[in-house]
């Protein structure tokens, strides 16, 4: 047995230095990529910004024929579909997470959790097809029923905002639910016991012991879900109708920023191309803003003494 491993000190530290340099350059590469990404989008989108001014963000008129490029309908579309999807997905996800952690026996909790995570692995084009063949007919019959009851002069198509919201809700559930499940699992058992020992029922334990403790983490999952919903392109493009106008009601055809880029990029040229790139830049800015707000809110909601 050799007890004396001859490893010159200088060699070790040289290897350390080399490794450190490699790590730093790889990390910087990411920053450079993000920077270039921003530069390209600003440069490409600038002519559209210059032409429309603030109207690009606040104007309603998008018409390649008359070369008007005002993006408010699509900004609105992105937020309407995103928040609409959250309104449906968050209660379902948190309820499913509570069921998995607090109620389900192990033999049921594991497969249910696994199946919910599986939803995240399904390609978005499959969601789009499901939207076309299942959701749209369902929404159309609901619309017909609504027209029958109220006498509104809608043409029931099933295509539009509502279908996009529903398809996004299903797509967002695995993200929100997986994170909610993990943070609920991380709530220390002594919090549950503290509530039980005060004479809390199971629901009260969840209400006073678990959800307040887990709220920051759950919100983190919700924000991630919002980011996913706003960024989702293909499935939305397949069901939203791609009309360049702001949604007049819950069922009308409209478009989101990403769905508009996807549906018009192929045949776009000139200023229209600039406008689509500018829209891409806006999408980037909104993602950054949503994430910054999320950070602030999460820090505020994290209970004192549990901050990592």
């Amino acid at each position, binding site marked *: 047995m050799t007890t004396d491993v001859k490893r010159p000190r200088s060699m070790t530290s040289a290897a350390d230095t080399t490794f450190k340099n490699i790590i730093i350059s790889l990390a910087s590469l990411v920053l450079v990529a993000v920077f270039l990404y921003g530069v390209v989008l600003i440069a490409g989108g600038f002519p559209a910004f210059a032409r429309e001014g603030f109207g690009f963000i606040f104007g309603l008129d998008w018409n390649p024929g008359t070369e008007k490029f005002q993006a408010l309908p699509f900004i609105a579309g992105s937020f309407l579909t995103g928040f609409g999807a959250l309104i449906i997905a968050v209660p379902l996800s948190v309820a499913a997470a509570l069921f998995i952690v607090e109620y389900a026996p192990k033999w049921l909790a594991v497969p249910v959790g696994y199946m919910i995570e599986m939803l995240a692995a399904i390609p978005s084009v499959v969601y789009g097809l499901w939207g076309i063949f299942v959701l749209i007919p369902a929404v159309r019959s609901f619309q017909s029923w609504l027209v029958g009851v109220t006498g509104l002069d809608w043409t029931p198509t099933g295509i539009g905002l509502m279908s996009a919201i529903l398809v996004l809700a299903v797509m967002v559930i695995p993200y929100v639910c997986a994170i909610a499940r993990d943070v609920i699992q991380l709530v220390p058992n002594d919090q549950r016991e503290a509530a039980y020992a005060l*004479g809390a029922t199971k629901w009260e334990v969840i209400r006073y012991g678990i959800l307040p403790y887990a709220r920051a983490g759950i919100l983190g999952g919700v924000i991630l879900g919002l980011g996913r919903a706003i960024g989702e392109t293909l499935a939305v493009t397949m069901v939203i109708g791609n009309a360049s106008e702001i949604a007049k009601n819950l069922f009308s055809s409209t478009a989101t920023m990403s769905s508009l880029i996807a549906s018009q990029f192929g045949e776009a040229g000139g200023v229209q191309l600039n406008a689509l790139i500018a829209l891409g830049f806006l999408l980037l800015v909104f993602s950054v803003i949503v994430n910054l707000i999320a950070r602030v809110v999460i820090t505020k909601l994290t209970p004192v003494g549990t901050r990592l």
Partner: protein
Amino acid sequence: MSNPFQVQVAERTASTAAIRLEAKDVSIFYGDKEAVKKVGVSFRSNTVNALIGPSGCGKTTFLRAINRMHDLTPGARVTGQLMLDGINLYGSDVDPVDVRRRIGMVFQKPNPFPTMSIYDNVAAGLKLAGETNKSKLDGVVEKSLRGAALWEEVKDRLKAPGASLSGGQQQRLCIARALSVDPEILLMDEPTSALDPQSTARIEDLMESLKEQVTIVIVTHNMQQASRVSDTTSFFLLGDLIEHSPTAQMFTNPKDQRTEAYISGKFG
């Protein structure tokens, strides 16, 4: 569901020094394993009762059976009778939620609700019981914090988060929280094992005054603590209750030689 506890409340103050809590042939199982074996013991009103013994002897298991915390452990099962003021806590008409309102608990590690203020932590139990009257809540919060010897330190910052207090203060906050629902029994599961000596001393002093309001059952690993704070001591070994005696007698003149071996530090 009729509440068998309600009848007893009026009689409660009349019968001091009466037997408050009594275990008859209590066995506790985890699956097939019998962790506590046919324990019979009784605790009188307004006393501090220590449960001692080496790790794994069943003392914490027994403590957690008293407020039916074991109902929450999968596979745990209790046989025999645990009587509070003559009512079997495991009777078919008894709701564990009611049991836990009557029998408060303080845990090994301080566990205030971290998103709640000091005030809300103490008021939590009352709010769970449906109390909404602000002045009533104010009064009980102050009384409970005074009872836990914490009022003077926190009265100017009741809105501060409960988790912003020091460890010893947090544990006294948890005691105040348990006191707020006016329990008859207070269970303490090694309440000072996570605290520094100074905070430990404060909580030990506190127990002396607490027993005017409640009957205390405390699990402790620390035999000096048992001899300092308790009126009776029960020594558990491998799930059996070996000896239950007045504390002074247990530590000077134990009846069982296994007790003597344990308290003189021969094992454990």
